[in-house]
């Protein structure tokens, strides 16, 4: 598979904060070629160069850049995406605490696809199946929890799921407003409220 030097999949855009954070997750890599004068990247090795066979955890963005063209490094999947965790997710995805496991589970998974080699298909299926297993629960809780509970309900969701959850809550609230014929009422803008709250807490 031909991979361009600048892989085009910046999602949702080049400037996306989420995407930058997701591509920073570490991937275990092994150097297949010697990188001169970059020994300082490996804190345990004392040599000037990164020798062939050096094992390092590189951030995903670097791993993808180096693995793509000249195959300077070869990558393994991070342990979250390996066999053992795949089994756990397969057993019951809805119970797993994805936020602790990998806060950008789906995004990172997508970025890892080109690195996964023969495991690519399994990984792709894992992402889709996990989301499908969990989506019903997320939708259900987002529409049926009280304000107080919302925080704890969110704590086990990864970033993508969290945004789905919050979108669900917002539309639900808007719908309730419309049903009670209060949708036309002008309210204080959200940022102003937050700003005033902070000012108030600083004063007191």
């Amino acid at each position, binding site marked *: 598979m031909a991979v361009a030097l*600048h892989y085009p999949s910046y999602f949702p855009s*080049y*400037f*996306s*904060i989420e995407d*930058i*954070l997701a591509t*920073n997750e570490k991937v275990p890599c092994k*150097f297949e*070629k*010697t*990188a*001169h*004068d*970059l020994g300082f*990247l490996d804190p345990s090795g004392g040599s000037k160069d990164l020798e062939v066979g050096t094992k390092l955890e*590189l*951030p995903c*963005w*670097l791993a993808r*850049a*180096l693995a793509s*063209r*000249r195959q*300077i490094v070869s990558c393994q999947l991070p342990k979250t995406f390996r066999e053992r965790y795949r089994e756990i997710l397969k057993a019951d995805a809805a119970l797993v605490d994805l936020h602790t496991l990998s806060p950008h589970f789906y995004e990172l998974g997508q970025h890892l696809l080109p690195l996964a080699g023969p495991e690519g298909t399994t990984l792709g299926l894992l992402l889709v199946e996990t989301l499908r297993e969990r989506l019903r629960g997320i939708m259900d809780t987002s529409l049926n929890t009280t304000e107080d509970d919302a925080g704890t309900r969110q704590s086990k969701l990864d970033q993508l799921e969290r945004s789905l959850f919050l979108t669900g809550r917002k539309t639900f609230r808007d719908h309730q407003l419309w049903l009670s014929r*209060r*949708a*036309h*009422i*002008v*309210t*204080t*803008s*959200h*940022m*102003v*409220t*937050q*700003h*005033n709250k*902070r*000012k108030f807490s600083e004063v007191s």
Partner: protein
Amino acid sequence: MLSEKALELIKELDRSKDGKLPAFNEDIIRKVLEEMNTLFQQNQRDVGEAAAGEIRYFPSIHLRHAALDRNKRCLLSYLYNRLERIRTMRWEFGSILPADIRANLCEPEIQWFNRYNKNLASYMRSLGEAGGLDLTQDTKPPKNLYVEVRCLRDYGEWEVEEGDTVVLQKDTTHYLPLAACHHLIRQGVLEQVE
């Protein structure tokens, strides 16, 4: 690891949501630029060698180049996301930002904000036939021309369009034209009573 400083900028933005804007972090930006400069110079040196036929330098060049790209992306994203936030603030806070937020902007950002203000104002003036259209008005379809409002804090004397003045005192209620008091509701001075 390379590009870690640049990531701090992004993390800083990620931590402060909901109408907060962290102070413009010139210090880290300078450090990132320094790192980029070093990387660039090392690469130039090695590219020179590589052009002379030294293939063994390619992996290092490639790695540094990726780091440069990453740094560039982080820096641009930092600036861009801050501008996005400042633009949203124009719509939420109105044309004048609260002093504590303004203090966190850097000089070019203040200039950008002023120009955005001016552009928006002249665009709104150019709309419609009679003297323009205020786009920040009527964000929700209004039901009545007049609304009942309750005052949430002491605001002092305030002039309604026709020249009448109202004293906006805490916990008093008034019956005012929505068009006139819309922005005071948005600013949290008044509250609409149904």
